[in-house]
C-alpha cells in the first residue's frame, strides 16, 4: 500500500513537473542556503583555526605598542629571560626579529624574509625542521651563520631533488650555511608566509640585519595546569615594573591570548550560524506555505478523483496518507535538490573565497529530514481536508 502510494505521489509530481519545481523552489533555496552557509562556515572556522594554530602553539604573544608620545619601546632578551625565570608556570619564552633580504644561491635570487629565532621560538610556534637539524646551543649563543630554509625559498633557489643541506648561500650581504629545511606551514597568523622565510639564530639577525638587540615581539607558553589569567596578570605586572610604568600610566605593550582569540572567533561563527538559521527558517516557512497552497489547489483539482476513491471504499486515513505522502515526497525531493545545489555552491564558493571545503554529513541529513518534515507539517491540513470530503459532493464536482 505504501509502495503504491509512493509511486502515485511520484507520478502526480511528474505530471505537474513545472508546478512541482516552482512550488518547491522555496524549500530548494532554503535547504541550499543552509547547506552552503554551514559548509562555508565550517570551512571558515577550519581555516581560521589553522591560522590560529599557525599563530603558534604559543599561548601569549607580547609586543610593544606606540605610546601617546609616539614612541615605541621594544623588548629585548633581558625581558624575555626575566619572564621565563620569574613567572611561575611559564615553560617557554622566546623572542624574534625579522628583516627583509634577498637570498642568493648559484645565480638564483629570491626576495624573502630573514627571521631571527632560536629553537625555543620555533618550538613555541610549532615550526619544525623536516630535513637536516635545528640550531645547536653553540650556534644560538654565538649567533653563527647557519640557516634553516622555508619551503618556498628552497624551491625558489635550489634545484628540485638536490639537498640544500650543507650549501653556502647568501642573504643580502651575509653568507650562511644551510643546516635544515622546515616543514610546510602555509599562511602565518601575522599575515607573513612562514614558508617564505629563512630562519637564522636570533643574535645573528639582530647583529647583522638589524644592528641592535631589540625584539619585534616575544611569545610564551605555559604549563596548562596554571590559570591563564594568573599568568597574564603576573606577566603584565612584571613587564610594567621592568618598564617603570607608574600606577595610572597605560601599558605600552600588548598581550594577546590566543585562546581568547579562538573563543571570540568561535562566538562570531556561532552568531553567524544562528543568523543563517533564522534566514533559512524564514525561507523554509515561505516554502512550506507554498507547499500548503499547492496541495490545497491539488486537492480542489482532484476533488472528483477523491470522490471516486472514497466511493470505491478508500478510508479517510488512506486518502489523507495519499496527499500527505505527496507533500512529503515533494518536499523531500526539494530537499535533495537543495542539498545538491548547496553542495555545488559550497564547493564553488569555498574555492572562490579560498577556504577549505569541509563536508558535513550531519547538516545534509538534518536539512533533508527537516525538508521532509515540512511536508508533514504543511501537507497535513490539505490532506486532512481531502480526507473529509463528502463522496457525493466530490463526485458531483466539476
Amino acid at each position: 500500500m505504501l509502495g503504491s502510494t509512493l509511486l502515485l505521489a511520484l507520478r502526480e509530481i511528474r505530471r505537474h513537473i513545472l508546478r512541482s519545481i516552482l512550488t518547491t523552489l522555496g524549500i530548494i533555496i532554503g535547504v541550499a542556503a543552509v547547506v552552503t552557509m554551514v559548509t562555508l562556515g565550517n570551512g571558515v572556522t577550519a581555516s581560521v583555526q589553522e591560522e590560529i594554530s599557525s599563530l603558534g602553539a604559543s599561548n601569549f604573544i607580547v609586543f610593544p605598542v606606540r605610546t601617546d608620545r609616539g614612541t615605541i619601546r621594544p623588548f629585548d632578551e633581558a625581558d624575555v629571560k626575566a619572564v621565563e625565570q620569574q613567572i611561575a608556570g611559564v615553560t617557554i619564552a622566546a623572542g624574534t626579529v625579522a628583516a627583509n633580504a634577498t637570498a642568493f644561491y648559484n645565480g638564483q635570487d629570491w626576495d624573502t624574509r630573514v627571521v631571527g629565532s632560536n629553537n625555543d621560538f620555533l618550538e613555541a610556534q610549532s615550526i619544525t625542521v623536516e630535513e637536516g637539524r635545528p640550531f645547536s646551543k653553540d650556534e644560538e649563543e654565538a649567533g653563527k651563520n647557519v640557516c634553516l630554509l622555508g619551503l618556498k625559498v628552497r624551491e625558489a633557489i635550489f634545484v628540485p631533488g638536490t639537498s640544500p643541506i650543507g650549501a653556502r648561500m647568501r642573504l643580502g650581504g651575509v653568507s650562511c650555511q644551510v643546516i635544515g629545511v622546515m616543514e610546510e606551514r602555509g599562511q602565518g597568523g601575522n599575515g607573513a608566509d612562514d614558508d617564505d622565510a629563512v630562519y637564522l639564530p636570533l643574535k645573528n639577525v639582530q647583529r647583522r640585519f638589524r644592528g641592535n638587540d631589540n625584539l619585534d615581539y616575544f611569545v610564551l607558553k605555559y604549563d596548562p595546569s596554571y590559570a591563564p589569567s594568573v599568568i597574564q596578570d603576573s606577566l603584565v605586572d612584571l613587564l610594567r615594573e621592568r618598564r617603570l610604568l607608574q600606577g595610572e600610566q597605560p601599558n605600552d605593550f600588548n598581550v594577546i591570548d590566543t585562546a581568547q582569540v579562538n573563543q571570540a572567533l568561535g562566538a562570531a561563527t556561532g552568531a553567524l550560524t544562528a543568523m543563517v538559521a533564522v534566514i533559512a527558517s524564514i525561507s523554509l516557512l515561505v516554502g512550506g506555505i507554498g507547499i500548503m497552497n499547492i496541495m490545497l489547489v491539488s486537492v480542489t483539482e482532484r476533488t472528483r478523483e477523491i470522490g471516486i476513491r472514497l466511493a470505491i471504499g478508500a478510508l479517510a486515513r488512506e486518502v489523507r496518507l495519499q496527499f500527505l505522502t505527496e507533500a512529503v515526497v515533494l518536499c523531500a525531493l526539494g530537499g535533495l535538490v537543495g542539498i545538491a545545489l548547496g553542495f555545488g555552491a559550497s564547493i564553488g564558493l569555498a574555492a572562490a573565497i579560498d577556504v577549505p571545503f569541509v563536508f558535513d554529513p550531519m547538516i545534509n541529513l538534518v536539512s533533508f529530514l527537516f525538508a521532509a518534515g515540512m511536508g508533514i507539517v504543511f501537507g497535513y491540513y490539505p490532506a486532512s481536508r481531502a480526507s473529509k470530503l463528502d463522496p457525493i459532493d466530490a463526485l458531483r464536482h466539476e
Partner: protein
Amino acid sequence: MTAEPLIQLEGITKTFGSGAAAFQALKGVDLTIERGEFVAIMGPSGSGKSTTMNILGCLDVPTGGVFRFRGVEVQKLDRDQRSLLRRRYLGFVFQGFNLLARTTALENVELPLLYRGENKTQRRESAMRALDQVGLVPWASHTPAELSGGQQQRVAIARALVTQPDVLLADEPTGNLDSERSVEIMQLLQRLNGEGITVLMVTHEEEMAAYAKTIVRFRDGLVERIDRSAHAVEGSAV
C-alpha cells in the same frame, strides 16, 4: 446465508438543510431487494431516486428509518465503516464514468483492489479478468481519453466488478451514451445479473428500465409503485 433479504429499507426519511430551508427528499420509503434482482429505479427529478441510490450505496445515511444491508443496520455505521462496506460488497457505475484521467484502463480497474491490500500480481490478474468480462482486454493499456464513451463505461463496469461485489449500483449508466452503446451496456448489465450479481440502476429512460426485472417508481419522496417482472425486452439475453 440467512433468509434475510439483501437490502431492506424501512420508513427511510432524508431531510436536507434545517429550519425553514429544510427539504424532505424522502418521506418514508419502504423497499426490500432480494439477492439476484435487477432493479431499475425511476421517477421524475426531485422524486428522491438519487437520494435513495446514495443511501443504498452507503454514501449517505438516512435521517430516519432503518436501512439493513446484509442484516447490518447501515444508518448506525460511521464513515469509515461504510467505506469498508462499499469496498467489500458494492460496485459503482456513474453516469459520467468517473475514470481517473491519464491512467490506463487496467490501472483504473485495479484501483479498488489497491485499497484491499492485494499485491501487484493479484491485482493485475483480477483486473484483466474483469476487463475480459466487459470485452476490453485489448484496450487495457489505453487511457480514458483514447476510449469511446461506451468503452469508458465498460471500463467503469469492470472497475465495479473487479472486487466481485454483491451489488452493482449504476446511476444513469447510459445517460451519456447514444442508444446503440446504451443497449450494449444494458445487455452487459443484464448478463452480469444473470451471472448472479444484484444490479440496482437509476434511470429515467423507460427503454433502459425495461431490461430490469423490477421497476421501482418514485414520486415526491415516496415509492409510488413497484412493477415486478413486468416484462423482459424481446430478444435480449437470458
